[in-house]
């Protein structure tokens, strides 16, 4: 019995205390006709060794040599110390810190995390995580509608250059509550959005992504000022690594963004097929009572020693049930631990160097790629560590052919927009060396050559 410690003697003694003849008797309140058959569709148990051998094979099967995919998940270096510590039983096998006295480790850590994230974004408060970047944005929209006192609208204006899967997620989550998403087209030349005051009139909020899905940088100061002036709240969707170099949303325009969300994955969390990741969420203090998710506060104990505890719980489902700000309960605690360790290990300069080196790598790649005849940057203007290349052949073909040679070159934008079917979204992080980029270029070159050659 893997993981079940009972000896035959234990079992007998326990049944005696209960006064039941056998374990079967303990299920005698279940209507007879409902009792299940054996679980025949599940194969017999295997040893940890056999499991390891099988999973090793499967994991190996999926490996590629080089991957230049970004599009919302980024392959940064993860310092060795992080997961050694995150995987400590004390972090990994604890529950949500309901008993504060027995959970000061996790609670203090989250308080530190809240501090780090609110400083990085220049926002007043941060919560203890929601599921991922996309659901964070959905929660931000719901929150904005609740929080916007100047404007009772349920219309959210969304920049059209936001990650398309964020948009899909938001649709799923906010539609049942009657919100409408009004998508702002982006300028086909720059890939950026602009806004006039008319459009934003009577919207509950404006959501912009920084960088946007194409890696570009929208005019966030201007967008923020126009939206605020019209009474809409501003929701910023940010990449936390980028904020080491970019203007933090708390400082956008005159008053800064009102709610900030983002995907915390770049902060020490492996790409791991898309999760578990870490939804970041911050806001101005005045609307904190509309924020979903757990929030840790510092207080004192009976001997006046500082201590940390779940606070503002009256926003949450376990207290307020149907009146809660969200149904979220379990969140991404362990990933908060990873991100906190990451930010602590990197410090200001470490994070800045990651961002700088990623940016430099992208410039190198784009510079070399656009020297290939027929390849050009699709959009103008500044970018951060990700950019759209327009190719002389279908992006889908380039992705397939390069992947066959062990290099996944980026994201085929044709998947999300037929008009961009010659466009490849390419990301470079600090993990890519000069040789890696050279390998990308020569592989791209070869594939384009072979596709373009007559017959």
């Amino acid at each position, binding site marked *: *019995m*893997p*993981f*079940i*410690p009972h000896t035959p003697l234990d079992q007998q003694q326990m049944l005696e*205390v*209960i006064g039941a003849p056998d374990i079967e008797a303990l*299920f005698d*309140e*279940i*209507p007879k006709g409902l009792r299940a058959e*054996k*679980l025949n569709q599940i194969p017999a*148990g295997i040893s940890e060794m056999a*499991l390891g051998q099988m*999973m090793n094979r499967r994991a190996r099967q999926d*490996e590629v040599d080089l991957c230049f*995919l970004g599009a*919302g998940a980024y392959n940064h270096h993860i*310092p060795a110390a992080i997961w050694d510590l995150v995987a400590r039983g004390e972090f990994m*096998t604890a529950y*949500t810190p309901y008993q*504060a*006295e*027995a959970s*000061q480790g996790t609670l203090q850590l989250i308080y*530190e995390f*809240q501090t780090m994230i609110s400083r990085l974004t220049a926002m007043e408060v941060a919560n*203890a995580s929601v*599921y*991922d970047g*996309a659901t964070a944005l959905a929660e931000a929209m*719901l929150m904005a509608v609740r929080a916007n006192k100047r404007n009772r609208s349920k219309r959210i204006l969304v920049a059209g250059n936001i*990650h398309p899967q964020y948009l899909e*997620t938001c649709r*799923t989550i906010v539609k*049942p509550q009657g919100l409408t998403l009004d998508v702002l087209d982006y300028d086909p030349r720059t890939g950026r959005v602009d806004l006039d005051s008319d459009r934003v009139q009577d919207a509950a909020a404006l959501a912009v992504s920084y960088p946007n899905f194409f890696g570009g940088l929208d005019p966030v100061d201007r967008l923020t000022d126009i939206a605020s002036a019209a009474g809409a709240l501003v929701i910023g969707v940010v990449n936390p690594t980028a904020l080491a170099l970019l*203007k933090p949303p708390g400082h956008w325009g005159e008053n800064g963004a009102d709610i900030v969300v983002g995907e915390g994955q770049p902060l020490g969390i492996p790409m791991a*097929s*898309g*999760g*578990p990741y870490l939804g970041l969420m911050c806001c101005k203090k005045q609307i904190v009572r509309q924020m979903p998710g757990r929030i840790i506060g510092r207080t*004192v104990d009976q001997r006046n020693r500082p*201590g*940390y505890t779940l606070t503002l719980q009256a926003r949450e489902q376990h207290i307020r049930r*149907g009146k809660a700000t969200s*149904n979220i309960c*379990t*969140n*991404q605690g362990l*990933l908060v*631990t990873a991100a906190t*360790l990451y930010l*602590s290990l990197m*410090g*200001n300069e*470490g994070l800045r160097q990651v961002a700088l*080196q990623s940016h430099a790598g992208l410039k190198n790649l784009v510079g070399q790629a656009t020297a290939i005849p027929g390849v050009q940057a699709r959009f103008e203007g500044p970018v*951060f560590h990700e950019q759209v290349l327009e190719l002389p052949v279908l992006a889908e073909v380039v992705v397939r052919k390069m992947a066959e040679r062990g290099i*996944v070159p980026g994201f085929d934008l044709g998947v999300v927009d037929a008009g961009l079917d010659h466009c490849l979204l390419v990301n470079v992080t600090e993990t890519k060396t000069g040789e890696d980029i050279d390998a990308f270029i020569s592989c791209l070159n070869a594939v384009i050559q072979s596709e373009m050659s007559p017959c």
Partner: protein
Amino acid sequence: MLIYERSRAGRQARAQYVSAKGLDGQIAEDLGEHLRQSEVGLPEVSELETVRHYTNLSAKNFAIDRQFYPLGSCTMKYNPRGAHQVASLPGFLNRHPLAPDANSQGYMACLFELQNYLKEVTGMQAVSLTPMAGAQGEFAGVAMIRAYHAKRGDVQRTEILVPEAAHGTNPATAVMCGFTVREIPVTNDGDVDLEALKAAVGPATAGLMMTNPSTCGVFERQVQAIAETVHDAGGLLYYDGANLNAILGQVRPGDMGFDVLHMNLHKTFATPHGGGGPGSGPVGVGPRLVPFLPTPMVGSSGGESPTYRWLDHKDCPDSIGRLSCFMGNAGILLRAYAYARLLGGEGLHRVGEYATLNANYMAKSLEQAGFTLAYPTRRATHEFIVSLSKEAKNQGVTAMDFAKRLLDYGFHAPTTYFPLLVPECLLIEPTETESKAEIDGFVSAMAQILEEARVEPERVTTAPHTLPISRLDDVKAARDLDLAFSEVAEG
């Protein structure tokens, strides 16, 4: 001491610097007005300080790996390290979520098989793995109920029924899905009040959400009658599968008549709880809701050596849609898959058996030690409730006092004051991975605390005494909000 209090301006943990020095000038030019002008605001500590600080912080936590953790409704059982190890293989960790299908076959094989196992375990027809926790699974489920009625043009169904013992996520979910909530009372035996239910159902009923076993720690015996009542009224039945551990391999929600459910893999499938997550809340559905399942899912070509591909909105045009940027908490799914393989069908069946054995043994032992069970005439399921009303009245020692004092004895406290309908309650769930000796130790600690409550109650009411802090001032926490460290405030 906070990590920020260890920070010193100008200190650098350089092993993590990727030597991007010298690019600074260029970046200002590249970014122009976008360049950050303010401090990034992170602590500046050495690698040793980081390691030491967080190692020491971790030591302030209780955890399965250190303590018995009988937190009712939370299923805190052993999280096999073998499952963690295989999910952490470089090939899985380095896989980008948007990698081409050709480079994803190993991963998708695991997911496809897991979908099938979960169908078998629940008796449902189809499963989507994408919800990222129980509450998101609930959202997906109730959104599917909404989509089902909408598709049929049955738009007057605006109400979701919820028994009063339900977990807070149930009503919160119903509201998130645009429904109003109506609570149904529970009888003194812990069963749903069937008459009240009958009175409540009607043309506005979109569905009923319930768990079975309920959070009262008993199996709802009238489940078939409840299903009939709701179905007859045109509503659908949602099963909150957070408590699946109790009945794993014993009885299947699909057979009980439920149309849709979620499971908490971070409970029943032993993936670690991580101090607050991540979780994973797959949904399973009966025939009527299959078209509405959230995407993506994994489809198979079938045959001897199948190939797998993602099913998305093109394949499932009626889907409620996507619930996350990528594919939910993939790593948790791998752990759950590994767990299912380690145990196999027979092993999963035993989980239900021994979880139930442990709970019934513990309940009976506590009763013999003088405690009052909330439902003494009922079998415990995987958990049960002790009520300390008597002790609260006679000695002034509350359920919370017992909970805090247990910490001093080296046991994590059970769930307190939930479900709300039982006064001064402890909801206790030992799980199948704990030994008789551990359970006996807990029972004897409870008995000792009972004795303390008689002879020196203040020892109990001022507990804990052996932890890094004593009870916290929660009122101050909410009143003088301090949610982020500030050096100035310290000065």
